[in-house]
C-alpha cells in the first residue's frame, strides 16, 4: 500500500515549534494556490511503512549479489559510522577554508591514494557517479584538443562491448561515436582499431579488464595506436576491482580515468545512488580539471586549475561517499587493496570452473573479477532464457547476474561474485545454478513461472511503458 493510501487527515508528527517571531506573508501574487497532498501519518506508521519497504528490497546484506559490472561487495559498517560524524555532516560547503581543514584533508588523502592506485597525477571528486565522471573525462579531452587548436577531432572510439554510458557520454560531449568491433577472443580487434585511428580521433574509451571479464593483453599496443594518431585514452574504471595493486591504468597508457567509489571502494549503492565518480588524469590534462583542487600538505588550500572546464555540479562532489571510500582504503592499506582484487579474481574463477561443464562460457579462459555465460544453447534446447534462469535465482534468495550485457554475447549472464563472499556462499550459489540448469532440462515450465516466492511475480513492463502511471492519482479523494 502506498504511503498516500495510509494517510489519515489529522495525524502527523510535530517536528517543529511554532515560529518565535512575527509571522509574515508572501505577496498575494506569489502565494501557493494548489493544495498539497503530503501524507498525514504518525511516526509509528511512518516507521512501519519503511520497514515494510525495506523488507521488500534485496540488498547486499540479504544475500549473494553477483551483479556483473556493479561490484556488489559488502559495505563495511565502520564507513557508515565515520560518514555520520557531525564533524563531516554538519559542515557548510561555503565555510571558510580555515574551518574545513578536515574535509579538505579527506579530499587530499583520497586523491593521493587513488592517484597511486590508478597511476594518475591529479584527481577531482566533483563527478557524482561513473557516467558523470565519463562526461567530465571527455570534456577534459575536448578542452585539451581545443587548447592545441586541433579542431578536426570529432570522434570517440568505443568498443562494441562497452557500457552504454560510454557512447552516451561521448554524445553529451559533442562527439560522434565510432564503434570498434571485438575480435573472436572478446578483446579489441587491433586491425579494426588501426583502420579507425586517424587525425579525426579525439580519443578511445576502454574498460580493462573489459566487460566480458578478460584482460586485454594488447593493451600497450592499443593505447599506443591511439596516442600515435594524436588521440587520448580514457579508462572506464568500472572494472578496477580486478586489478588493484597488480596493474594501473596509468601504466597501461591511459591519460584519464574515472573510478566508481560505490563499486570498487565499498560505498553503498543506495538503491541506485549516490555514487561517486572521481576523475584522475595525467599531467597533460590537469590544467583542465573542473572546479577546485586541494593543495598543500599541512594547511590545505583550494586552487582552481588554470584552464578549468568549469563546474560539473555544485561544490566538491558527493563528499560523504569520499569519506567512506577513504575509510575503506585506510582500513585495507597497501596489501589489503591488492588482496581484495586477488580474491575477487579468485572467487570469479572458482565459480567459473565449477559451472563451465554445464553452462557455456562466452570465453573459456582465465577471467578477471567476472565472467560471462551465454545461455543461447540452453534456450535453443529448452526455451529457457537468461531471463528465466535469473528469475529462478530470485526464488533461491540470490540476486541474478547482469542480464543481456554485454551486447556482443547472446543470452548473456555476467557474474561478478566479488571478494567479500565466502567459499560456502559460492558453493551454495554454484549448486543453485546447477540445479536450475537441470530444471531447465526437466521442467522448463516451472522456470517460466519463476519467481513465485517474491512479493510480486513477473511484472508487465510493456504495459508500464505503453500507459505510463508515474504518480499516485489523488483524484476524487484529493478534491473531497
Amino acid at each position, binding site marked *: 500500500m502506498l504511503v498516500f493510501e495510509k494517510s489519515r487527515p489529522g495525524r*502527523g*508528527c510535530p*517536528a*517543529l515549534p511554532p515560529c518565535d517571531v512575527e509571522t509574515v506573508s508572501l505577496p498575494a501574487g506569489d502565494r*501557493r494556490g494548489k493544495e498539497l*497532498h*503530503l501524507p498525514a501519518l504518525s511516526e509509528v506508521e511512518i*516507521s512501519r511503512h*519503511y520497514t*515494510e519497504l525495506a523488507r521488500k528490497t*534485496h540488498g*547486499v*546484506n540479504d544475500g549473494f549479489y553477483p*551483479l556483473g559490472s556493479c561490484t556488489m561487495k559488502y*559495505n563495511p559498517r565502520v564507513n*557508515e559510522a565515520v560518514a555520520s560524524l557531525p564533524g*563531516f555532516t554538519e559542515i557548510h560547503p*561555503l*565555510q571558510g577554508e580555515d*574551518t*574545513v581543514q*578536515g574535509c579538505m584533508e579527506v579530499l587530499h588523502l583520497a586523491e593521493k591514494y587513488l592517484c*597511486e592506485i590508478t597511476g594518475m597525477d591529479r584527481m577531482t571528486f566533483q563527478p557524482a*557517479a*561513473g557516467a558523470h565522471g565519463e562526461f567530465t573525462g571527455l570534456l577534459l579531452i*575536448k578542452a585539451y584538443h581545443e587548447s592545441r587548436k586541433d579542431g578536426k577531432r570529432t570522434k570517440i572510439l568505443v568498443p562494441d562491448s562497452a*557500457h*552504454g554510458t560510454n557512447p*552516451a557520454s561521448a554524445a553529451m560531449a559533442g562527439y560522434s561515436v565510432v564503434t570498434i568491433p571485438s575480435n573472436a577472443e572478446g578483446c579489441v580487434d587491433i586491425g579494426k582499431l588501426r583502420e579507425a585511428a586517424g587525425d579525426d580521433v579525439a580519443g578511445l574509451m576502454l574498460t580493462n579488464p573489459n566487460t566480458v571479464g578478460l*584482460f586485454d593483453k594488447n593493451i*600497450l599496443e592499443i593505447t599506443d595506436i591511439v596516442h600515435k594518431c594524436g588521440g587520448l585514452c580514457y579508462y572506464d574504471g568500472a572494472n578496477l576491482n580486478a586489478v588493484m595493486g*597488480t596493474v594501473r591504468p596509468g*601504466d597501461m597508457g591511459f591519460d584519464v580515468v574515472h573510478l566508481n567509489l560505490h563499486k570498487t571502494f565499498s560505498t*553503498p*549503492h*543506495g*538503491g*541506485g*545512488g*549516490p555514487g561517486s565518480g572521481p576523475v584522475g588524469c595525467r599531467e597533460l590534462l590537469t590544467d583542465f580539471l573542473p572546479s577546485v583542487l586541494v593543495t598543500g600538505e599541512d594547511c590545505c588550500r583550494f586552487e582552481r586549475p588554470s584552464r578549468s572546464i568549469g*563546474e560539473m555540479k*555544485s*561544490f566538491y562532489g558527493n*563528499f560523504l561517499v569520499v569519506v567512506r571510500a577513504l575509510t575503506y582504503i585506510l*582500513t585495507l*592499506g*597497501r596489501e589489503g587493496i591488492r*588482496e581484495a582484487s586477488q*580474491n575477487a579474481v*579468485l572467487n570469479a574463477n*572458482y565459480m567459473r570452473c565449477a559451472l563451465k561443464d554445464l553452462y557455456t562460457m562466452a570465453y573459456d579462459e*582465465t577471467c578477471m573479477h567476472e565472467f560471462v555465460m551465454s545461455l543461447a544453447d540452453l534456450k535453443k534446447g529448452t526455451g529457457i532464457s537468461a531471463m528465466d534462469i535469473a528469475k529462478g535465482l530470485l526464488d533461491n534468495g540470490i540476486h541474478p547476474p*547482469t542480464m543481456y550485457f554485454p551486447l556482443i554475447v547472446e543470452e548473456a549472464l555476467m557474474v561478478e561474485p566479488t571478494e567479500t*563472499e565466502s*567459499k560456502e556462499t559460492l558453493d551454495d550459489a554454484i549448486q543453485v545454478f546447477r540445479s536450475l540448469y537441470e530444471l531447465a532440462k526437466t521442467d522448463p515450465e516451472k522456470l517460466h513461472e519463476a519467481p513465485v516466492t517474491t512479493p510480486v511475480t513477473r*511484472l508487465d513492463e510493456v504495459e508500464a*511503458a505503453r500507459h505510463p502511471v*508515474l*504518480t499516485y492519482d*489523488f483524484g476524487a479523494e484529493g478534491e473531497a
Partner: protein
Amino acid sequence: MGSYVPNTQEERQAMLEAAGYASMDDLFRDIPEEVKLKGGLNIPEGLSELEVKRKMQSIAAKNKVFPTIFRGAGAYRHYIPAVVGSVTSKENLQTAYTPYQAEISQGILQSIFEYQTMICDLTGMDVSNASVYDGAEAAAEGVAMCRERKRGRACISAAVLPSILETVKTYCFGNGMELEVIPEKDGVTDVEWLKAHLDKETACVLIQHPNYYGNLEPAKEIGEAVHQAGAKFIMSVNPISLGILKTPAEYGADVAVGEGQPLGLPLAFGGPYLGFMAATRAMMRKLPGRIVGQTKDRNGKTGYVLTLQAREQHIRREKASSNICSNQALCALAVGVYLTAMGNEGLERAASSCLSKAHYFAKRLGEAGFELENRGGFFHEFVTVSEKESGRALQALEEHGILGGLPLDDHRILWCCTEMNTKEEMDEAVRILKEV
C-alpha cells in the same frame, strides 16, 4: 591490516587448486609482465577498525561545526526529523543496487514512485524522474532536454546560483548549445532585456525563483514572454519554499528543477544532495534518468518497475536523452521520508518560519547598519549592504560560534534564515554586529 575477505589462506589455496591454479599470481598470468606494477602500492599499511575510527575522528575534529548558521547560497541547514536517518540507514535499502530486478526491489521502486508523486505534488508538474545528482546538474539537464533541432540557444538568468550558471556552461561546452546570460537588474532578472532577446532560436529560458539573492522573480511575466516566443520555461525552485510559494506549474513552467538537499539531507560539505526534475506530460519522454511506473504482475497484483527505458543509455547508447545511470536514490528516499514526516502542515510551518525569520532578521540587521539591498519580495535569503566591511563583520560573528552570511564583496552579504534560527540567535548576531 583490515580485510573484508572471509576466506582463510587454506580456503583460498583449496579454491585455487579446485580451479586449476598454482597461486594467486597464476590468476594474473594473462597480464603482460611489462605492464604490471613493480614493488607494490605506495600507500600506508592497513589499520584495525579502532585505529581507522580514531584517525577519521581526528580528521573530522579539524573542521569547525557552527552551532548557528546564517549561510545558505545553495546549501541549507534545516531540521531533519530523526526518522529520516533511521530509514536511510536500513541496510536492505542502503546496500541494494538500481532496481533492475523488480520482483526483489519493490521496496526501492515503491519509494521512488512515492518520491515522484511528492515532487509532482510540490511543484504542480505532471511527471518527475527518480533524481539526478544535484540542483545545478538538474538545471543543466533541464536545459539540455529543451533543445530542439531549430532551437539551440539557452537563456539563463544572471541571478541564478553561480554553480548553476557554471554547470550549465560546462554542459553547453559539451553539447554545443549556445548560451546567453540574461543580465540582472535590481536583484532580479531583467525582463525587458529578455523580451528583446527572445527569438525563434531560443530553446529555453532558465530562472531561479527565489533567485540567488533570495528575491522573488517576476516569474509569471517571464513565463508568458518565453511561451510567446515558443520557447520552454525552466524554473529552478527551492523545495521548502513550495510549502507556501506558488508552484512552478502555476507560473507556467514546462520544466521544474531544484536542489533537494533542504528536504532532509545534511549539509555534509556539499554532498551527497540530489537534483529533482519534473516536467509537463508533453516533455515526459525527454526527461533524463530513471523513472518508475506502476503496473501489474502476472496475478494482477500492483507492482512497480523502471519504465520508459527507451530514453536511457543502456538501451539507446549514443542516442540516449542523457548518460545518467547511478542517481541519488538513497537521497530521494530521505526526501520521501522527510516529506512524509513533515506533512502539509510541517512543510508549511518550515516555509513560513523561514520567510518570517528572514524578514525579522533583515529588519534587525538594518538596526546594525546592514541595509537590505533590494526592495522587492524575498523568501529566506536576502542581501544587505553596509559600510562595515563584510570580512570584519563575519569574523566577529565567527568568534561567537556563528557562521554569518556569505560575503558577496567587501560590503554586501547574502544572509539566510531557516526554522533552525531562533529569535535569540538572531538578536545575539545583531548585538555582535552593532559592535563591529
